[in-house]
Structure formats: structure tokens, C-alpha cells
């Protein structure tokens, strides 16, 4: 195992993040604040409680998940797409590293960045609402797993994408709708019965529900199902990445 290579990639990716720290930091704080103004104050004032939780607090797990998922995907996809785009990928291919090490470096860095933003949003949220986290360990575990699995997913998108448009395509057309419709801002029980059933086909529902459980001790779906969903998603991503590297798909001619 070429640990130094993994560390080199990780550090390199993190350095990019820190070069744009202000932007990395300010943008989630600003958007979280905006969500609280719109959903918390404007709309939330008409919805007093959802399942016994103040609406402002209720949306926090969804908000964190929304950012963490999109950030994981964007960071990882861009991280590996950029070297492909400018050609520096030659160095990764000619270095004594296995693809596994390359994935660890890029996905590790992307997940770290997403975690950082997740924490920033949590801290920002705590300025607006009272937050009691019922299962802190489970909360951290869910956060880490979500960051990792969505970074893996983003990595796949970055490998697959052949231009900037494709790079944006899946996050924009698939992930964002799934996340918004995955119960970020509402409980599934608030939907008409037919929609409740349809919603259960959205994998993101299970992740947000599980994450919310770690905050409030209650969830739309059973916590076991949530864990199963995230495990299944991670497995699918890992298998895809394994296949990509086995065949050199869009990396090695």
C-alpha cells in the first residue's frame, strides 16, 4: 500500500479546498441562514410542530443532508474530473499507485470537505434553533457514511463525465430532486397516502429519515431500513468503482 501517495492526493485535494476557504465557508453559512429565514421564519411560523418537533429544528437534519450529499458529489466528481480535463491524470496513471489508493485519496478528501460543510451548517443552525441530538454517535456515523458513499458516487460521475455539462447533469437532474423530495423539509406522513408510497422508492428518504432519527429519536422509516439503504448504496458504488478500474473505463486507453 502506497500510503504516501494516498496522503499526497488527500493533501493536494484539501489544499484546493483551503485555497477557496472563504467561499467554501461563507456559501454554506449564507445558504443555511437563507433556508432558516424562508422555511424557519416565514413558513415555519405557520407550522408550529412536526411530530412534536419545532419546525425550525425539524428541518436541520434535512438541511445538513441536502448540503452534505450535493457537496460530496460535487467535490469528488470535480476532484477526479479536473485532472482528466487538464491532463494531469497522466501522473496518476504513471505513478506506482493502485486505483484503490487513488480512490482513497480523492474520496477521502471529498468526504472530509463535505463533513466540514456539514458541521458548519450544524453550528450555523444552532444559532437559529435549539438543537438536542438524541443519538450523537449515530448522528456522526450517519454523517460519515453519507459523506463517503456520496463521494464514491461523485467519483463515478467524475470518471464518467466527458465534459462539464455531463459533470453537472446527474447532480442537477437526479440528485437535487431526490434530495428535495426525500423529506428534507417535511415529514412523509404529511403527504397524501399515494405519495407516501411513491416516496418510499426514493433512496434519499431512508438516509434523511435515519439521520433525523439520530437527532430526534423518531423517523419516517425504521432505522434498520435506513442503515440497509445506505449500506446498499455504498455497495453499489463500490462495485461500480471496482468495475471502472478493472476495465480502465474512460481512464486508461
Amino acid at each position: 500500500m502506497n500510503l504516501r501517495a494516498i496522503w499526497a492526493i488527500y493533501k493536494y485535494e484539501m489544499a484546493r479546498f483551503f485555497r477557496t476557504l472563504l467561499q467554501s465557508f461563507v456559501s454554506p453559512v449564507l445558504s443555511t441562514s437563507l433556508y432558516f429565514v424562508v422555511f424557519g421564519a416565514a413558513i415555519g411560523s405557520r407550522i408550529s410542530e412536526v411530530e412534536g418537533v419545532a419546525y425550525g429544528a425539524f428541518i436541520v437534519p434535512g438541511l445538513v443532508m441536502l448540503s452534505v450529499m450535493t457537496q460530496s458529489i460535487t467535490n469528488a466528481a470535480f476532484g477526479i474530473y479536473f485532472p482528466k480535463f487538464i491532463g494531469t491524470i497522466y501522473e496518476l496513471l504513471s505513478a506506482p499507485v493502485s486505483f484503490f489508493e487513488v480512490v482513497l485519496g480523492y474520496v477521502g478528501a471529498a468526504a472530509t470537505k463535505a463533513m466540514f460543510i456539514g458541521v458548519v451548517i450544524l453550528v450555523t443552525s444552532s444559532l437559529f434553533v435549539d438543537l438536542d441530538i438524541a443519538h450523537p454517535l449515530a448522528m456522526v456515523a450517519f454523517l460519515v457514511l453519507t459523506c463517503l458513499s456520496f463521494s464514491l458516487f461523485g467519483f463515478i460521475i467524475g470518471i464518467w463525465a466527458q465534459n462539464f455539462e455531463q459533470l453537472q447533469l446527474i447532480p442537477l437532474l437526479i440528485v437535487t430532486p431526490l434530495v428535495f423530495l426525500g423529506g428534507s423539509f417535511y415529514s412523509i406522513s404529511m403527504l397524501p397516502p399515494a405519495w407516501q408510497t411513491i416516496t418510499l422508492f426514493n433512496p434519499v428518504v431512508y438516509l434523511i429519515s435515519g439521520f433525523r432519527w439520530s437527532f430526534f429519536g423518531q423517523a419516517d422509516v425504521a432505522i434498520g431500513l435506513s442503515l440497509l439503504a445506505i449500506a446498499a448504496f455504498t455497495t453499489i458504488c463500490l462495485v461500480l468503482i471496482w468495475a471502472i478500474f478493472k476495465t480502465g473505463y474512460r481512464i486508461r486507453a
Partner: protein
Amino acid sequence: MPAIVEIDSLTKTYDDGFQALKGVSLTIEEGEILALLGPNGAGKTTLISALCGIVAPTGGHARVGGLDIAADYRAARAIIGLVPQEITLEPFEKVIDTVRFSRGLFGRPRDDALIERVLRQLSLWDKRDSRIMQLSGGMKRRVLIAKALCHEPRVLFLDEPTAGVDVELRRDMWRVVEGLKQSGVTIILTTHYIEEAEAIADRVAVIHRGEILLVEEKDALMRRMGQKCLRIELTEPIAAEPEALADFGLVLSDDGRVLSYTYDRQAERTGITRLLRTLADEGIALADLQTAQSSLEEIFVGLVSDGKAA
């Protein structure tokens, strides 16, 4: 000298069916500078990309430092440095950071003294904290070389190091390559300039349409390729070659206005001075002079029609 790179029947067919390498076999000796000479699209870049792990060969084997590039890819790649043809660097990166990154990627521990030595050798030390985008084209190329050298490779591949580079920078690059050779690194460089092969290589391999046509000591090759032609345009047409010019083997054009003289540029005496003096003595007035060297393309045609590498 022992062999450091052994290539055995290496083939590469791309997905679109294009056969870029048709069974290339080549042995490169430790410590030499080998120029891989060939026109655009000959397979030069594919060959070194296959050796460096950027392209997966379709068939054949290759060993670097005795290590198989597929089975022992980690150990093999650890002793290879690659300088790509295109300038591929992250524009916002600092010189020293990108060089350190390369060393780490190759699994080597941080060594600031070594990196300083490499950067000084390439006259980049003063620019170590500059961002890549602030550097000139020539300096960017040096950064690529620094990145390739910072893990102390034994074999360095330089893919068209002077393509699209002005004369001064080209000479500068040649000096750098010469310095690297002095430090004991084996260098394989691709080029489509005969002059470049002539200036720095010990041996020259000619590749054309995915096949190695010949591998030869540079000096021997240059003698063969060194044929030049002097074209002398006359003010007044002449009916026949004057007697005094007989031993030059000149060719007179049909209209009697042009004399062509073929000579060996590498020879100690090209005979040009004597030819011109004789022409003056004969009272033949010259309108213009031109010299031409057989192009690489012509040499290839010659090589192929000679039944491959005479």
C-alpha cells in the same frame, strides 16, 4: 552497457481499431540518450505511454530495470519518470507544491534538500513559490521535468520536449538533457526533428507507422542521413557541363539553368568551396543558391523501399 529497458513485441490497438504499435521490440542501454524519431502519428507517444502505464498494451511485454511493467508495475513505475508532451499543470498550484506532490505520489518520503537540488538544476529555485500560471512556457516545461525527476528515476521519458519551442529554449532544453545524462539517468526522448536527435542522442531509433525501422548509433545514421543537395541557379543557361566540373558529379537541368550538387554534410570537406571557385574560374555567373536536406519523410520512404533498415 546493461539493458535498462527491454521491449518485446509490444502491440497496441486502440478501441477504434487503429493499430498504433505493431510489435515493437527495442532494447535501451543504461545511461544512454535514445532519440525515438518519427513523424507525427508514428506511434512515439503510444510507445512511451504504454511503458509508463498510461496506455494498456494489447500484446507483448516490456521490462524496465528488469521489472515487468504489468506484473511488477509498482516497482517498475517507481524508477520511471515521464515528461508529457503537452504542458499539463494545475495553473493555481505553486511550483514547489506540485513537485512535492509528485514525489509523494511516487511513495517517496519528503526530501527538501533533494527537491532544492532538482529545482536548482533546472533553474527553477527562484520560482519555487510562483504559481504555475505566472511562468513562461519554457519554465512550465522545466516544472514538468522537475516533477518527473523528484522521485529520482533511473529512466526518464521525454515526449517531444521541444515541440513548438523556440530555438533558444530548444538549446536550453538540450543542455538540461545533457546535464541529466551526466547525472546517470537514462533518457528516451521522442522527436520529429532530425536536428534534435543529432544534437543530443547517442543512438537513434526510427519509428514509422507503429514499427521500428532501425536502431542505430547516431553518428552512423547521420552519415547516412547527412546527404544534402546544393542547387545552383545560373544567370545564363549552359549547353553542357564544363570539363573542369566533371569530378563533382553535377546534374544539369534540361533547360541548362540549374546545376545540382549532392554532398555529405558530415564530411570534412564538402567540396562546396572548390565547386564555387571552379564555377567562378569558368566564368559562370550565379543567380541564386539553395541547399536542401532530404526530409525525414523522404528518409522513411527510402528506408521502407530499401526493404527495412538496410
